[in-house]
């Protein structure tokens, strides 16, 4: 299959890559750009492990073609930390033990950040609905919700 050249901005960096027309954005990010923070759980939009932002909107990268990212801005978990300074969400996930195996974590962090960017003070039920498309087989969700709440509180007081 003929590959296509695409230009995209990932976490603020302008990048060029080749990709096949039927390759997903998830595969392009992981296999061609080496951004392995984005995870594949299901490949069919059900688990949210592949969550990224596409021009500011939270999406499943497994449901986007790589070629659709041409000219777009992508945000992944690799863009959350400011060099050595973890994002408050990342710190609160570690401090609150909001992960076990960690495969859902990058997607949940990206999704939670997208929520807090829109709504700095979400209620518990708003957080639960927003994250309903991010499945976690390990934690039982409670610590995840608490970590998002405490990160949000810290960010509001900053």
């Amino acid at each position: 299959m003929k590959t296509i050249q695409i230009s995209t901005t990932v976490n603020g960096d302008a990048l060029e890559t080749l990709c096949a027309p039927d390759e997903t954005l998830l595969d392009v990010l992981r296999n061609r750009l080496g951004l392995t923070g984005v995870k594949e759980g299901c490949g069919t939009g059900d688990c949210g492990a592949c969550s990224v932002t596409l021009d500011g909107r939270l999406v499943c990268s497994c449901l986007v073609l790589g070629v659709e990212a041409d000219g777009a801005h992508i945000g992944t978990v690799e863009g959350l930390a400011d060099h050595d300074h973890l994002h408050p969400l990342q710190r609160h996930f570690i401090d609150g033990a909001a992960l076990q195996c960690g495969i859902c974590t990058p997607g949940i962090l990206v999704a939670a950040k997208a929520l807090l960017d829109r709504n700095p003070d979400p209620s518990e039920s708003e957080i639960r609905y927003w994250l309903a498309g991010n499945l976690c087989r390990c934690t039982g969700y409670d610590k995840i919700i608490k970590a998002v709440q405490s990160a949000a509180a810290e960010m509001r007081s900053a």
Partner: protein
Amino acid sequence: MRYERPQTATQAAQLLANEPGLARILAGGTDVLVQMKAGMVTPDLVVDIKKIAQIGNIQSEEGGYRIGAAVSGAQLGEHAGVCAQWPGVVEAAQLIGSTQVQGRATMVGNLCNGSPAADSVPALVAANAVARITGPNGTRDCPVADIPAGPGRTTLTKGELITSVFLPARPQGAADAYLRFTPRTEMDIAVASAAVSLTLDAQGRCCEARVVLGAVAPRVVLVAEAAAALIGTHLEPPALDAMVAACRAACAPIDDKRGTVAFRTQVAGVLAKRAAVIAQTRAGAKS
């Protein structure tokens, strides 16, 4: 597979019409990519419509709204005007999938995928929405109700694509509502669903109604007898009972692990009744 991203609907129609193999239109991709991944469809050509001018916009038109075919559920929910005028359509579209799916999924994709359980379709039919279609021979308008042809099929012909859906203006005292039953509260497919759109006159009497059921037949069902049961009433218990009976009589569902015929039929009536009362309350608050 070839990927094309045309700038106009006419170019898109030509690409689709000229493709000898299997072509797929790509809007949000939340059905298309899942089907490609599962090997259910292996398109020779994918036509991404999102770069067509205006297709991602919501525009006021004659007191109503023209919703571009690439408008996502999330974008629809952020539009205060549509939310105020067509709350039932918006709540139906926003039931589709998770936040991530909402960022991509379109109502037109939901319609053209052809699932009898598609959430936005009953609400669009209740709203008397009209699809604008571009094809190799030009542009035509078609009621959304006439687009589904059965599971996985539409009445669109080769080369045709929908560019927008028009939600008409509403009189004072009009509102709509959509409800579905799913085993889980989120991320699940409707076992039965109901949309009701109605208008109340100055005395609060129902003067116009459309009652539509989803997931209880191969196609969405507009139940004229159910609407007739509401018109001229204040939705008193006997009127609602007559509407529920008409809805149940119109059900011809499948029997599967997600719901039996009896269950789907029962639930469709309950949902229609609740949706009618919600629409009435909303309409009352507006008038």
